[in-house]
């Protein structure tokens, strides 16, 4: 399968603001990667670079292609959902399906109609008459019927209620993802993608602050839950983050030996949300 995305020293400036600052990472085929960061961290800029929608400095290959110069070829292999609201409002459901079938050689219309049949979207309806959740379902049904090497989702559930968000990710995992697909998802809502990712990329102020497979988080990071009287001892061991709640102290350590921490309290693998807060706030303390 090999490497699908390769970025080396990827940078992008808007005036004096560094939207991407010397970012390097690779994404292997068959992974589900979460590109996670607070608003304005550079997530969308990174995606635009990957999709050939913006100029950048540095080295970047997606599916073996230079996204900026070989954009037309790239769109044969890569599909993206920019965000929930970008389907044209005037188009009808059956028209957009027919159109994508006409222009996309990897689109399987029968599969798309099958997905749509499971929803309550009327085939003759105009997009502007559909609810936000339905528009997202429609867009996802189209994207899932495309045999793309890479599917990029940029804040795909923004503005959706919790039921719509859940059914979105359920459909994605149950009906679309298999070992031949690669998914790149950006979001700032960490909790809802935590359980489906295989890899994490944390980005903050244009810099990559964490790049790890999910199953390696436990090897590197540990969360210590302890009481106030042990807090000073824990602090002396150099946690990257500390949090207090209801009389308990929670510390997150990066690359510390569990044996040294175990006597101080209860150890566990931090959740992605805790890790997110730790890595994003860590530098400020």
């Amino acid at each position, binding site marked *: 399968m090999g490497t699908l995305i390769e970025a080396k020293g990827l940078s992008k400036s*808007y005036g004096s603001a560094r939207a991407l600052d010397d970012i390097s990472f690779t994404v292997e085929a068959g992974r589900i990667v979460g590109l996670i960061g607070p608003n304005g961290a550079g997530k969308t800029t990174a995606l*635009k670079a990957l*999709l050939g*929608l*913006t*100029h950048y400095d540095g080295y970047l290959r997606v599916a073996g292609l230079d996204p900026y110069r070989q*954009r*037309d070829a790239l*769109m*044969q292999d890569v*599909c*993206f*959902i*920019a*965000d929930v*609201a*970008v*389907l*044209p*409002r*005037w*188009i*009808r459901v059956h*028209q957009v399906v*027919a*159109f*994508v079938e*006409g*222009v*996309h*050689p*990897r689109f399987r219309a029968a599969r798309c109609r099958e997905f749509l049949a499971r929803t309550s979207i009327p085939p003759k309806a105009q997009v502007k008459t559909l609810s936000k959740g339905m528009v997202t379902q429609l*867009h996802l049904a189209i994207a899932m019927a495309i*045999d793309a090497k890479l599917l990029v989702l940029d804040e795909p559930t923004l503005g959706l209620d919790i039921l719509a968000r859940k059914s979105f990710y359920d459909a994605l995992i149950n009906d679309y993802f298999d070992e031949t697909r690669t998914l790149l998802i950006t979001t700032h809502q960490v909790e809802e993608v935590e359980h489906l990712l295989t890899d994490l990329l944390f980005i903050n102020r244009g810099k990559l602050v964490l790049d790890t497979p999910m199953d390696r988080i436990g090897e590197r990071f540990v969360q210590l839950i302890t009481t106030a009287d042990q807090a000073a001892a824990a602090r002396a061991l150099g946690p990257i983050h500390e949090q207090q709640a209801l009389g308990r102290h929670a510390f997150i350590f990066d690359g510390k030996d569990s044996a040294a921490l175990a006597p101080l309290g209860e150890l566990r693998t931090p959740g992605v949300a805790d890790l997110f807060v730790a890595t994003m706030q860590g530098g400020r303390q």
Partner: protein
Amino acid sequence: MNAVLESGKAVAGAVHAPRLRVFNWLVRRELWEHRGIWIAPAICAAIILFSSAVGQMNLGDSPTPHGPGLAVNAPAADQWAGVALLGMAVPFYITLLFTQFFYALNCLFDDRKDRSVLFWKSLPASDLETVLSKVFVASVVLPLVALLFTVATQAVFAVLAALRVGEIATQLGTAFGPNAAAAAHAFVGALGSPQLWLADVLTLLWVAVGFALWTLPIVGYALLVSAATARAPFVFAALLVGGVGLAESLLFNSGWFVGQLFQHAVGAIVGLEHATGGPAAVNAHGYVPSVSGERLLAALTSADLWVGVLVGLLFIGGAVWARRYRDENT
């Protein structure tokens, strides 16, 4: 095409849709989105037919008593019929000037405004193909639609005239004398001539070609503004044109730019006159033989026309570039 599709499914590697098929769908998309393509000429046709029907009814109420009488011979009736038909085309092409300009001005802007450009750009149709599909609609589809509506309106007019010729001739006869009644019959008789209709359709086809070529720089300019402006394409387009015109008149005290603009806009409609050779040709030779290869060739060798086409192509190239490389900061 089927063979290509089948092999495309079998081979998972480099798969490409046939480019002609993609282009066909891009054009179809434009027709879905822009309903005004049909609505504007339909309104135009309705107004022409309604006013001509009302006009026919009011003939009898004319207060003029017995006039001098009209001497009508067969060639004159042919001329009148031809001119009447062609005259009906003028409102369609004036309407076309507006629908074409506003179509081109908005077609690359609207999808950027509502961000659906990000959906179109997620599909394997290149920006070159997208822009060319819009040029095709503006400069080929729209003039042909105008042609179709013109001919349909002419035909309905002719049928209405034939159905009511007796009544109208009687009214005219009462008002202006027997010659006028004969003229009405001669006029309607001329409208039934296949030769007249052949010449009419050929003329209109020529007008459509001339229209597309004369207005290409205007279409290209509108597309470029549409693809490049951050907001308000009309305001931007108008200010730029007004600014250039004003600057020229202030700096050089000349009106070349505005003159060119007028020539290309109105030249499109004046193509009608180019094709028919103008009133002089009608008077001298009658209407039917007026669409001569010689005259068409003369109109096609105008340097202004081809310089305009070249400028239009440069603008279109600029629009493709802007569509491809403009960084949408959304």
